[in-house]
């Protein structure tokens, strides 16, 4: 049979002109294992972005041309992104559509799947062909707070899958490509939803984003409002910072990990001053290694930790940060 095509959504804005989000490169890496890779984007890719996509083996880049009557902010609305995905799938005759697992991308992917009559798996951690390329697609995900693995097959062509960050390690292609940008005209009706205001969130410079980071350090009520030690350890490790919902509702930090917050599955998750309530665990239990610091030896988070320190985070975290910095400095000297 002919080589299948996998289409990847270049989610939202790239962080700057020269960078492609790591989660997107992970999607491209998975897509390459499935067949020819095309990407669809709503923004004009820079030369640097094209070079990165080429290094990762992307063969086609389709840039949506939205009607000029559409207000600029409306391009982020689910109905508009869904229309772009549908047009791109039809143009490329894609057999698989892969999108990230953020709330917005999931909604757009779902609506696109509805319009395409396609099956959908959300938050997948692994994707492959079931038997033969172009046949049924197989997607595995982790559910029930990381306690079960569930594999589904999708028999529709195309199949739509959203993939969680850190599902694979992004790799460049053995044979680089030189993709060119093709315009993809989009015909959308004026959306019924009006964007009254839209304020992009500042991307914390110097720190990876919570969704994508390979290491996450999170703080809870036990910080008592001082996130200094949490941020200090995160910076020593090059990690992202997260929190519990309680800490966010207190106004101590802006983003939290958990079932109603961000779901993370990094290589290492470090929770400090966090009890490990089911709602929080639901968003981090799929992490590869879990480390906890808590002054209560009975803290439930210890039950799911690989390594735990019973102690005051205000003492433990700065000492750990110091030791890691010293280790790194030694490594740099060698």
């Amino acid at each position, binding site marked *: 049979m002919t080589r299948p095509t996998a289409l990847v959504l270049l989610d939202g804005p790239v962080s700057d002109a020269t960078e492609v989000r790591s989660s997107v490169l992970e999607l491209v890496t998975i897509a390459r294992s499935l067949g020819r890779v095309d990407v669809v984007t709503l923004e004009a890719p820079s030369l640097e972005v094209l070079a990165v996509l080429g290094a990762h083996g992307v063969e086609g880049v389709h840039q949506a041309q939205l009607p000029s009557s559409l207000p600029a902010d409306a391009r982020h609305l689910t109905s508009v992104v869904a229309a772009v995905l549908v047009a791109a799938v039809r143009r490329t005759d894609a057999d698989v559509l892969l999108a990230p697992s*953020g709330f917005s991308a*999931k909604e757009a992917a779902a609506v696109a799947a509805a319009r395409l009559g396609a099956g959908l798996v959300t938050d997948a951690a692994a994707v492959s062909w079931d038997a033969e390329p172009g046949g049924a697609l197989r997607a595995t995900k982790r559910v029930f707070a990381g306690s079960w693995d*569930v*594999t589904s097959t999708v028999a529709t062509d195309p199949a739509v899958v959203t993939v969680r960050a850190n599902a694979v390690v992004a790799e460049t292609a053995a044979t680089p490509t030189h993709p060119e940008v093709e315009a993809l005209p989009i015909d959308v009706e004026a959306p019924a939803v009006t964007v009254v205001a839209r304020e992009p969130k500042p991307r914390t410079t110097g720190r990876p984003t919570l969704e994508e980071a390979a290491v996450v350090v999170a703080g809870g009520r036990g910080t008592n409002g001082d996130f200094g030690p949490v941020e200090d350890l995160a910076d020593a490790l090059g990690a992202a910072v997260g929190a519990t919902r309680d800490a966010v509702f207190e106004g101590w930090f802006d983003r939290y990990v958990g079932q109603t917050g961000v779901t993370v599955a990094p290589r290492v998750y470090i929770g400090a001053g966090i009890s490990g309530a089911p709602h929080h665990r*639901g968003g981090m239990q799929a992490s590869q290694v879990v480390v906890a610091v808590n002054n209560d030896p009975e803290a439930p988070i210890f039950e799911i930790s690989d390594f*735990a*320190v019973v102690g005051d985070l205000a*003492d433990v975290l700065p000492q750990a940060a110091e030791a890691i910095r010293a*280790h790194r400095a030694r490594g740099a000297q060698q």
Partner: protein
Amino acid sequence: MRIVVLLKYVPDIASDRRFAEGRVVRDPAEGSLNELDENAVEAALRLVEALPDAEREASEVVAVTVAPETADITLRKAYQMGVHRGVRVTDDALAGSDYFGTAAALAAAVRRLEAEAPVDLVVTGMAALDGLGSVVPALVAEALGRPQLTLAKSVALEGRTLTVTRESDDAVETLAAPLPAVLSVTDAANSPRYPNFKLIMAARTKAVETWTAADLGLDPAAVGAAGARSVVVDSAPRPPRGETELVVDKGEGGKALADFLIRNDLV
């Protein structure tokens, strides 16, 4: 004003959640109202309570669940909070539905209510805690051809215009749409009320309406296991984590933590 609230019946997150034969086990002893849907009920009730007297008296909040027979606890809970009417859609033909089958059944239930009198708003929770999909609200909006305002942190209704604020993955937004619309609310939108004694007593005897797939004019081949576009082929519990290495801090806890990371090549 007529509002339909969509409520899901899910295994309690503190229970031993599991799969059997490719489906989530829905043991009645562990079934509960998806906690996040309490925020949806609260949002619907508050919108009605904010109306002028005459309009408020003429309003109706209807809770709908697509669930097995054992799910009445969800509607009972909604009655306790002050919902007027509860409908359970139950049919063997709906078992094994995927996101699209579920959305089709929910949309058909809204249309059936619409045949009685206009439905101004559909309100849902932000996610079902069993699958954490967060896609059914958008799919119901799509099926009904109505605008969607999802993941609202705050909700305001002025005349026939609904305005929400929301935090998307990379922006803070204010969106507006005319009614009729579909709204999903996050757990930050409100604090669900505790039922009062009077409502608890009244909820005991309140009837639950039950509808079948045929009542909704659903094609049995398009919903349930027959219409599902994806099928679970394998499910297994993950092996438990190994032993926890526990260190009690006596002044060296931070160093021990750093050492653990370094020794496991995690730095």
